[in-house]
């Protein structure tokens, strides 16, 4: 579970300070900072943006611009689990489109949305480097290859039970 977030949350505040401190000497620190914050909180909380801007002597707009440019970073909390389904060519050649359609059906949402119960977010990814064993997906931090619809159902079920 992600920690509950609000601006008053001092734990969060301390954690952000520590991250900023760890990176203050680093050249080009913004991406490392954003990664560290997202790793800690699951997303980049709005409250962090002004603090980052202050620490790097940049404007909030600049920080927002960077966050929104990169697909990896998210400003909103993720669903409980995230499924990334590869949309790239080598997986297409092995039924990646059909697998995506199946995922949309069983999760009841489209790509870039989450299931109505917020148990799963469904995301696109362009290649996981598993192209000889497609179709490939990533479920939270584990990658899976040779995933047919039945295997996907099984993985989703395991995640739900876990």
């Amino acid at each position: 579970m992600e920690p509950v977030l609000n601006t008053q949350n001092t734990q969060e505040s301390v954690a952000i300070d520590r991250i900023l401190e760890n990176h203050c000497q680093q050249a080009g620190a913004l991406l490392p900072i954003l990664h560290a914050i997202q790793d800690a909180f699951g997303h980049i909380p709005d409250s962090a943006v002004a603090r980052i801007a202050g620490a790097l002597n940049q404007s909030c707009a600049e920080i927002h611009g960077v966050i929104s440019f990169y697909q990896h970073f998210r400003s909103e909390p993720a669903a409980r689990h995230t499924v990334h389904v590869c949309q790239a060519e080598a997986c297409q050649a092995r039924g990646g489109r059909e697998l995506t359609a199946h995922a949309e059906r069983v999760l009841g949402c489209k790509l870039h949305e989450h299931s109505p119960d917020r148990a799963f977010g469904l995301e696109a990814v362009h290649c996981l480097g598993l192209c000889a064993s497609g179709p490939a997906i990533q479920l939270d931090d584990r990658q899976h290859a040779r995933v047919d619809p039945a295997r996907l159902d099984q993985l989703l079920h395991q995640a739900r039970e876990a």
Partner: protein
Amino acid sequence: MPIRIFVPLDSAARAVGADETAAAIQQEAARRGEPVELVRNGSRGMFWLEPLVEVQTGAARIAYGPVGAGDVASLFDAGFLHGGAHELAQGPTEELPYLRDQQRLTFARVGVIAPLSLAEYQAQHGYAGLRRALTLPPEAIVDEVSAAGLRGRGGAAFPTGIKWRTVAQAEADQKYILCNADEGDSGTFSDRMVMEGDPFMLLEGMTIAAIAVGATRGYIYVRSEYPQALAILREAATLAARAGLLGDDILGSGRSFHLEVRQAAGSYVCGEETAMMESLEGKRGIVRAKPPLPALSGLYGKPSVVNNVISLASVPRILANGATAYAAHGSGRSRGTLPIQLGGNIRRGGLVERAFGVTLRELLYDYGGGSASGRPIRAVQVGGPLGAYLTEAQFDLPLDYEAFAAADAVLGHGGVVVFDDTVDMLQQARHAMAFCAAESCGKCTPCRIGSTRGVELIDQLRAGEATAAPRLRELCAIMRKASMCAMGGMTPYPVLSALDHFPEDFATGACPAVAQGEAR
């Protein structure tokens, strides 16, 4: 002596259950009181056999695969610890034709050693290249790389020696070595296999580059989709620094090279070298205008070498064994070997390192064994999402930069993605345009707006408007000529090749079985 058993930690092996297989082997060995030493190696690159378990029996390693956790007990019953017969037994790994018939120079150790064992790396010629480089004047290192004929493996095939010389001759208080490990091209995974399977080779190559051009800092920019490669590289860098192979006074030479491993954040265009530098500086990945060349004004405006993982990983061997040995491989102006990645709808997908000059047909049928579905191979996309689609009539093309260019195609990073006859080439062309629209950095109009128009035109074609075809060609001509970088400039390759080689899929009223629109 415990028997050594190898179970790959490569992401593609783990994604099909290698961790569970490894755990089952350990449990079963403990239950039976058999002393075993379980080694997590890189992958041999025969992915249809993963998880590929190898057992060291005397001098040879015997392969079993694909081994699921459920197969483990029966393997013990069959005496696999001594190479016993079993339906999953493949024989001695090195004698498997797929592997035996390769020229593994860069991949010589991948899948063989434990990736984070500096001792094993050094026992297998690791750091011999750096040791030799430290005895040479810097210009001689650059000469060696030039004489080897090494060209960049990231896609553009620019001579590495010329790039290094430019940086070496530039005057500056700071220079950088930047390793492009963004490996954004779909259908490619050779960088990943090197980073996960033989990380010290990359560090050694970067260190040699640093000494050759006078750089003291470097970055590896690793795509965020490769979390394990990132973790292994970071660990390898720590180990190398501890052993005096990175940091200050490398091997007592008085030379320093400080390396940082950076995580990218899911943007394809950040694989373009100037966008990558923007990203390393903490900005959005917007492509910079060239000139100035990164070699003269790169990261923070300082002279920078930008090279792909495989380019840099090729360097230690060139230095250790000499340029002549490397240049002896290859065809025409394409010297050395190319790690080819066979993916998509192929029976035996994997990593095939061969000297340039091997034909697509050999790769697809001799190595690959035809399509995985058993249906005829209809189209092959070579060189990533911006590469051309080739047809059966072109399968005798040798893999050689010039031969591909003459056929209006590219080798790129060496990805070969196979499609059977159920492919809908209009849908593939649409995907290429849609990908460009999604990943464009937005700096120039032909790419940013053109790609969106391209999607619309292809939709019109699907709807039966024949006049859209000439307009699509015109648009492609503009994108090709007027885009600032290869994102917009090369998207026409997959689109036009699909249109030219598979016109039947674009004919009015063509409506293949799989024609669900790709409105995502």
